[in-house]
């Protein structure tokens, strides 16, 4: 087994796969990567399974040392990655030799980068998932001195899959694709109009659990009978705040669900920073 040793933890990084699916009946959050597109691409570049465990890196990356040879790829946010002081590119296979040090520098765009490794990271599996979540898994975030295991792999050159092109547009757009939520029809014309036309700013209250928006929507809707919520559900609180639920969200909620982001919408908003602007663009499912 190879070990990836954490020399510096950076701001916030965690091991994630596609999440702890199938445990919603117990009230267990799904968790998993915030941006499935970037994580999937990071894995496919290395010919891994799409949902193999990756390292999700938020804004300021860690400094990592590899004990054995392998291959890695980085997708999503551009965080100026360096291998032994040499700049490396996103969206391509990087060969790693024993002793190599991976570090990150200035953020250029996006919020979350994904580091995949040949064969996926090995980590404790709880309820069918390696995704870190406080009180469910032993670890919740990357800490200095930690060691993450991976299978050794020859650092030989492999042809990059030519058909695999990372489309970065979704990282830079402010349009968030959304469907009408279950309670959308209870909104007044004025509320709907504001919801669709207003530019909303990402609030500093944003995490893997939920992203709050700064601008408020006048709200006179009654609370609903507690019902199911999923990542991408947009709740409207009694005070008029909009809350976009993300991957670590609870499984049920009692606020009206006015919008529901689709997969693209979730991936895009997962890449936004505090004070960045977004606009909901309503589309129809099917």
């Amino acid at each position, binding site marked *: 087994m190879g070990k990836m040793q954490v020399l510096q933890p950076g701001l916030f990084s965690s091991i994630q796969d*596609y999440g702890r*699916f*199938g*445990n*919603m*009946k*117990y*009230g*267990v959050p799904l968790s998993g990567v915030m941006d499935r597109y970037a994580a999937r691409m990071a894995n496919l570049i290395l010919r891994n399974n799409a949902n193999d465990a990756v390292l999700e890196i938020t804004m300021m990356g860690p400094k990592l040392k590899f004990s054995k040879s392998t291959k890695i790829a980085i997708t999503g946010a551009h965080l100026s990655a360096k291998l032994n002081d040499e700049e490396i590119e996103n969206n391509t296979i990087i060969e790693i030799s024993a002793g190599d040090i991976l570090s990150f520098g200035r953020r250029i765009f996006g919020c979350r980068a994904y580091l995949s490794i040949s064969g996926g990271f090995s980590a404790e599996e*709880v*309820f069918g998932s390696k995704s870190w979540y406080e*009180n*469910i898994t032993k670890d919740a975030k990357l800490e200095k001195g930690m060691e993450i295991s991976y299978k050794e792999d020859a650092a030989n050159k492999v042809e990059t899959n030519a058909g695999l092109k990372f489309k970065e547009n979704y990282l830079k757009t402010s349009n968030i694709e959304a*469907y009408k*939520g*279950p309670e959308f029809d209870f909104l007044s014309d004025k509320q709907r109009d504001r919801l669709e036309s207003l530019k909303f700013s990402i609030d500093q209250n944003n995490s893997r659990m939920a992203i709050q928006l700064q601008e408020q929507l006048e709200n006179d809707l009654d609370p*609903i*009978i*507690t*019902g*199911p919520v*999923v*990542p*991408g*559900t947009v709740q409207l609180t009694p005070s008029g705040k909009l809350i976009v639920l993300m991957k670590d969200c*609870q*499984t*049920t909620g009692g606020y009206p669900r006015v919008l*529901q*982001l*689709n*997969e693209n919408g979730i991936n895009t908003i997962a890449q936004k920073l505090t004070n960045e602007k977004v606009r909901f663009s309503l589309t129809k*499912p*099917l």
Partner: protein
Amino acid sequence: MSKELPHISQLGDNAILIQFEKIISEKVLDEVLFYKNLIQQLYIKQKVEVINTYNSILINYFVTIEDVYSDLKAVKEVFQQNNNTKNINSRVFEIPVCYDLDFGIDLELISKEKNLEISEIISLHTKPEYRVYFMGFLPGFLYLGGLDKKLQISRKSQPRMKIEKGAVGIGENQTGIYPKVSPGGWQIIGNCPVNFFDKNCEIPTQISAGDYIKFKSVDRAEYDRIKEQVNQGNFQLKKQDRNG
């Protein structure tokens, strides 16, 4: 018997939501559970989990739904073909609670506010068979129905930062057990030594939506005994089958 069909729609790219009548009642829950059971038997070629809340069923997909049209059609047919609902079987679990004042830190306040002796509060709380509607909020947190109106009391105006694991509380018309240490605004009347969520178990809790629980008052000595058994991993909840 004519009945309104529930509202069936797509929720995002990864789920189908089925909404029933907007009320909290055992009648609606029985209907929800009957159809949930049928939908769980339905052949859907993708990996799904079917869950329920008070008046909704959610079919949650692991990845984006491939053929929404065909899945929605199959779900609609379940409702068109089965309109005589029948109650599913359930079980009654006996849940030990110690109502000592050490644990029931709000018992004296409730006693004063509701003009009830503490013994009356305990007897009113242990009398009903509470229906388990579903789990949510925290892993292993049971949404229960059936609290006696005499025990309904508003939440604390200032929620506590820390409520102990196992704390049994009342908030408005709800009662429940905190499955782990967490902040919370309910009035606390006792503590339950049983684990409601064990991440080391394949099935982290035996209790399912539709089951019933009945609280049983235990003294401190028995509470400690049960706690010890729970820690050793050899405590068994008492349960009884209850036919639908």
